[in-house]
């Protein structure tokens, strides 16, 4: 998969939707492509948040380790962004992630991510907007649960 194809996939990520092609390429070029065989752990709950990941191909699942075994939270596929909250909030990983099928991800280093936000307010605004949307959805869900 070439840099151009990766840039096209990044465009599907909501947070990066409004970026023009050259910035998407910048994001892709400064990131590392990584392969994980099915079953391998990407990171564990409690690890330092040193990078965010975009799924390029394959499936991954988010899970917690409980006494009774693992509890699957959600499944992620292409275009999904993983671990960006930890990077932005400078907090350890809140859950574990592993590959369900063979997985191809783009690893965006924390330092690079922060540099990009600092350099391009446009990306920062998009990230904020996306976070605000998520917060809104969570609030709605909370409201619907507590009803």
């Amino acid at each position, binding site marked *: 998969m070439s840099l151009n194809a990766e840039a096209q996939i990044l465009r599907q990520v909501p947070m990066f939707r409004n970026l023009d092609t*050259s910035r998407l390429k*910048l994001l892709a*070029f*400064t990131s590392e*492509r990584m*392969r994980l065989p099915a079953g391998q752990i990407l990171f564990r709950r409690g690890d330092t948040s040193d990078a965010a990941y975009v799924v390029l191909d394959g499936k991954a699942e988010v899970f917690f380790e409980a006494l009774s075994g693992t509890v699957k939270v959600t499944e992620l596929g292409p275009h999904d962004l993983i671990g960006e909250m930890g990077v932005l909030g400078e907090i350890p990983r809140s859950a574990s992630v592993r590959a369900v099928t063979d997985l191809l991800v783009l690893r965006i280093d924390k330092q690079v991510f922060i540099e990009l936000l600092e*350099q391009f307010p446009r990306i920062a605004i998009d990230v904020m907007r996306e976070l605000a949307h998520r917060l809104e959805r969570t609030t709605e869900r909370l409201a619907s649960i507590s009803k």
Partner: protein
Amino acid sequence: MERSLFHYIWRHSRRDQIAIFIVVIASLPFYFMSLDLPKRIVNDAIMGNAFAGGVSEVVFLDLDFTWPDFMGGGTVMLFPGMTVGQMGLLFGLSGLFLFYVCINGAFKYWINIAKGALGERMLRRLRFDLFSITLRFTPDTLRTTKASETATIIKDEVEPIGGFIGDAFVQPLMLSSQALTAMVFIMLQSVPLGLVVLLVVGVQFTVIPRLRRVQLRLGKERQLASRLLAGRIGEVVDGMDAVHTHGTERWEKSEIGERLYHLFDLRFRIYKWKFMVKFLNNFLSQLTPFFFYAIGGYFALTGRLDIGQLVAVIAAYRDLPPPLKELIDWDQQRLDVQIKYDQIIQQFMPERLLPEHEPATAALTELHLAGPVSIENLRVQDQHGTVLVEDATLSWPYPGCVALVARGDGAALAAPHAVAEVLARRILPAGGRITVAGHDFLSLPEDVTGRRIAYVGTQPRLFPGSLRHNLLYGVLHKPAQIETAASAFGDGGDKTRVSEALRTGNPLDTPEDDWIDHSAIGMLSPSELDALLLRHLALAGLEDDTFHFGIHGWVDTVRYPELGKRIVEARQHLRARLSECGMTGLIEAFDEKTYANQASIGENLLFGASRSPQFTGQGRARNPLILKALDAEQLTGDLIGIGAGITAAMMEIFSELPPGHALVTQFSFLASEQTVDYDEALRRYQAGGLRRLRADDRVLLLTPALDYIEPRHRLGFLDDGLRQRILAARWRLRADIDRAGEPCDLEPYRADALCHNAMLRDNLLFGRLDASIANARQSISAVVTDVIEDLNLRPAVSAVGLDFDVGPGGRLLTARQRAGVELARNTVKQPDILILDGGLGAYSASEASVIHERVVALLQNRSMIVVAGENTDLESFDAVVTFDDSGAVTTTVPGDLPLRAGA
């Protein structure tokens, strides 16, 4: 040092000066004979004067010697000569002329060499003397001395003095004798004209030097100003971080600009004076002929002087101005050099120096300071006269661990540190008496204190060089007896070295001698020494750091002849281990026959490692060997095309980031400062392809292509055909290098041998990591460490770390590592007394306390003095000395009542 330069020169070089002078005198007769010969050749041989009157043969080369009358007279025939005809005489005289030319040339050669050697020897002596004096600067002097200024003095300012020394005595003697001869000749012809010449020469000799004095004063100012400039530039370079932190680049530029203007102004004024004086000098020289023509002509016309005499005087006068001019120049140079010398000497005044260092005797070097310390009425001041310690009296037993504590927040704060510095001989007290192990401490030479006392302060001073050199710095005390042995057994080149050292007052030691004080650390083999250093580094908490340096270091197989083989073994173990764990895919192994995808195009092409600029960076794109191989496989166009593609991609990707941005420096192929060049090269390439490119463009565009790694950069430039041709170019390059048969800086990768130019870690991996496998780096590091542990290679790898170059002032180390090296260096020398004055400040609190415990354990039978910080646990000390604001000093034993109260 002597006040007067001439005393200094005379004292150290009179024998050589006299020898040169004698040779110069001996050469003169030959010189005059060679001047006389052309006349004889023309008159006697060619014009045939010798054969006038029908003589057909003359005697040639007859050598006889007539005794002076007072010795009885008579003639001794040395050589009867040969009878020759006109042709014979011509060739004989011409041959004689050639002979004199050779003789004169030989004399000149010898004199020039002797003068040059004399100057260089004196320069060496002068520089060495100045450096020796620098080592004697008092602490107060050092505070006001700028390192870069001292360096300029020793390096640059003495240079002209050296050039002058060869001529210092010989030149004026020669010139004045020449001038005197001409003068006497003129006087003999005509006294009045002689007096006129004398008058003009007198004016020249009084007025011109006076005028030149102004010029010299300006020259002196210029010397000072350029010295200050050097000092200032040194300061800016040392404090560059502060300049950048405060963004004061512009201020610094204007400051230096102003100094440069001042220098220009001085130079310009010097020029104006110089040429004015030159004009006057020329004028005076021309004035004499005027007098000759006017007055001499008048005398001739009035019949008081015959025309022949006038012509002779004028002819003789032609010989007078050149030596006079040179004499005046010599005098000018003398004044100039004397002023420079004075300027230099002023920086090295006796009142700014410590007493001269006596050579250590065996008794002194074996003297230990293992005994109680007793301090009486100690008084310490800083350079402003502020009292740091007032009349302190204290003592402690040996062995023991003593804490110096300040109680209060005023005058006492600096006291423990001041006492520690006095005991380390870093400052001299203003008064008081210190006795250590029964010796008067303040009068002990550095040979004793430097060996027996260790001081670990907050500012480690590391010297550029290997970690090993820095660790051994405290034990570089060569025993005295080796010195005589070296001079006695000098052979060949070494003999010259020794005799030159003796002639110039330089030391006979060389840095290659065995400098290690084996009486301090024991008679150790090189490997035992490494083990000792590693133990002390481990004590200072640098075990892992040293291992890290080692694994990222280069193996010196001269020092460790066996290690190369063991690393190749470890390489095979690593390969086996990886396949056991199913991790073979982590590393793409190097193979002569296949293209390594995880390595760059350049690495694939070279298939070897080099540390020479010809085979790294942009040097590769200029290397004719590489270019030839690329051309042969018709790769040049393809690679430049790839380079252009990369350049275009980089231009697009990084276009919106400012040049020099962290992301650009970290990720872009193109250096920020070359962006414009790349832009132009790319435009030319897009407009007209390869043909439009200039030579520099080719280098620019080829370089990024050589750094390209397809799986990492993912720009899609490589296909199998290209890979195959790159392989072919690899083989061709290797064949070309082998065929040339010359030593080459490119060392090929071989599966069964160590590659000296590659890092130890790369030698173990012998391949490139596949970075696209998740957590590849961590996994491989763990396996590498395992293999090294299993093969028991860790000490050997750490020993390679001892070769790590710490950089100027240890700048390639972290603050913690610098502190660790400083501590280890001090424990290595096994001191009787170790002073810890904030030296653990760079460690985290928990690590500092662990290391403190280790040092205490190491020194349990010796003495340790700790300047206690706020968090120091005083309970563990044998004695605690407390300084309080009132100036009182109390010694307590923890858990006990106060022992003794000082004043």
